[in-house]
């Protein structure tokens, strides 16, 4: 792949994502203070010892931001991977097997999508105990409905191709057809979709945390940090805006990369060859 062909906007996106991932991986090394250490007064302004100031309990905002990158990215990534595996497996099964299975999966998916995602999550999280893995699972299941819809449409296009028919006539099983025939041929459009789902997961997780239903304190997480510091806004303290800006920046960066990936897959049919 030619590096020069990557547009400037995509480079910005890649750089932003790289910085965020760097922070997430090396959080204990680069953070000046601990995640839960109270190091100063409440809501100190930015500058001096504390580069971004302190939060509502006197914890260093920069350190929490760096640790928060870890939680936010990890949970969003886990939910995306899970939702993607689930959605793709079910949608490909529906497309390959067809008939009653397809009808059953598709109608159930329609039913799930008839309830707004956030409302569905609120209803479900009201009942379930608050654990991290439950949160990831709920996010993944709700998100997989979108993956299912797109995955099924893409897989149906491929499932009628000659080489799939040839595989069927050879006597290959459904599993072979799903993983060896359809999956490799649908991977590139679905990859861009995966990026979009990741951006959506970050926003969704942050929204849930902001509403107090996502990651529970004292663990640092960007959405939760906005919630912690929101009362400062009235006094003109911008501590809540900093994690908010971090969420927005990361989501914008992911979207910039996805935008480029989508243009690339749509303009170059079979552009995977040089990847």
């Amino acid at each position, binding site marked *: 792949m030619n590096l020069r062909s990557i547009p400037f906007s995509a480079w910005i996106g890649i750089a932003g994502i790289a910085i965020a991932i760097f922070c997430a991986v090396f959080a204990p090394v680069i953070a000046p203070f601990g995640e839960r250490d109270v190091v100063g007064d409440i809501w100190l302004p930015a500058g001096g010892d504390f580069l971004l100031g302190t939060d509502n309990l006197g914890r260093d905002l920069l350190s929490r931001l760096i640790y928060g990158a870890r939680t936010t990215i990890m949970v969003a990534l886990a939910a995306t991977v899970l939702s993607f595996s689930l959605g793709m497996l079910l949608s490909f099964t529906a497309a390959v097997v067809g008939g009653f299975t397809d009808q059953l999966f598709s109608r159930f998916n329609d039913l799930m999508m008839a309830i707004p995602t956030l409302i569905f999550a609120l209803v479900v999280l009201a009942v379930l105990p608050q654990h991290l893995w439950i949160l990831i699972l709920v996010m993944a299941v709700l998100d997989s409905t979108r993956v299912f819809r797109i995955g099924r449409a893409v897989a149906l296009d491929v499932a009628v191709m000659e080489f799939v028919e040839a595989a069927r006539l050879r006597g290959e099983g459904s599993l072979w057809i799903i993983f060896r025939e359809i999956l490799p041929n649908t991977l590139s459009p679905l990859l861009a979709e995966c990026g979009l789902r990741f951006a959506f997961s970050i926003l969704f997780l942050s*929204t849930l945390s902001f509403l107090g239903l996502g990651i529970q304190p004292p663990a640092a997480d960007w959405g939760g940090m906005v919630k912690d510091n929101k009362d400062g806004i009235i006094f003109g303290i911008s501590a809540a805006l900093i994690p908010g800006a971090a969420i927005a920046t990361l*989501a914008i960066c992911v979207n910039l990369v996805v935008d480029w990936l989508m243009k690339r897959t749509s303009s170059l049919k079979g552009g995977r060859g040089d990847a």
Partner: protein
Amino acid sequence: MMESGPLTGPVPTDGTADATHPRSAELSGVPAKPNPAANPANSEIGGTLWRRFTFRRPLAALILQRLGLSVGLLFAVSLMIFGGIEALPGDFATTYLGQSATPQAVENIRKDLGLDKPWTERYLSWLGGAVQGDFGTSWASKNSVGEQISRRLGNSLFLAFFAALVSVPLAVGLGMLAVQFRNRLPDKIINVVSLAAISLPEFFVGYLLIMFFAVQYGIATFPATVYDSMSVTERLSAIALPVATLVLVVLAHMMRMTRAAILNVMSSAYVETAELKGLSMFRIIARHAAPNAVAPVINVIALNLAYLVVGVVVVEVVFVYPGMGQYMVDAVTVRDMPVVQACGLIFAAFYIFLNMAADILAIIANPRLRHPR
């Protein structure tokens, strides 16, 4: 059919796909294809009646079908909201009293809340009440849920209505502007800005606006409290910031989708023919492009209004606005199930019926969808 993009909340119900779908008729309880094996006399009369009706009034029949489908869907959703909660692990009584509660205390509170009856019985009585607007009493505050909702629903709709009033003309206008200057500077600026705007979380936009307009300049009020004795102008100034937030959140989506829809029409062969005939730009847009672009644009608007209904939840929490969204979030944190179920059902109902409206409007605006092959 244009792809709405997976970031949008609304379900992209495809008009053509559903119309040809045999299940849609079945779900709505309308015997589109009567089964001759079962009760021949009855089903044949119903079948011919319905068939004659579809033949004479295809539009009315389609709309009736959609209405039936939506009601059926809503029923299924109510079952899911209620039954799903029953199926999930976790019991209110034990959560409420904590891990160390005695079995006797748990038993008492279960009986108190009616949780000892079988769930089918509770579901039927809940559904029966919900149809009449009675959603039971809140577990936490012991108030009537229906009463609270009737007061808050008006507030939420007030907010969503003004957000729609501002955002719809603005989105359509900007979308047309982007098409007019396609691939030139204004279009590129609009593209980049809207891509960024899609990525902004609602609460971030909200607090940013509060920081600037309420705290720095002091020209707007925060928190956006409204009460009954307020005059209309007072109310409007109170909701200025929440409305602005909602507009910013929906605008980018709506505009991008409008742009795609209009661009789709403008790049078609008949518009090119009109251009080559030497017609004026105004005539091309007014006579050739607009009638064909109306259907997708209406669809876009209805889908985004459905999204607005959900966007209200976060915005209300940010601005401490006494609406449905805040009520629901508060109830979720204390696990007040009657309130959560009622709010969930009402939000889902709005969402489903706005999606249905999008479908029906698309059918009305585009006659081709009325005659599925």
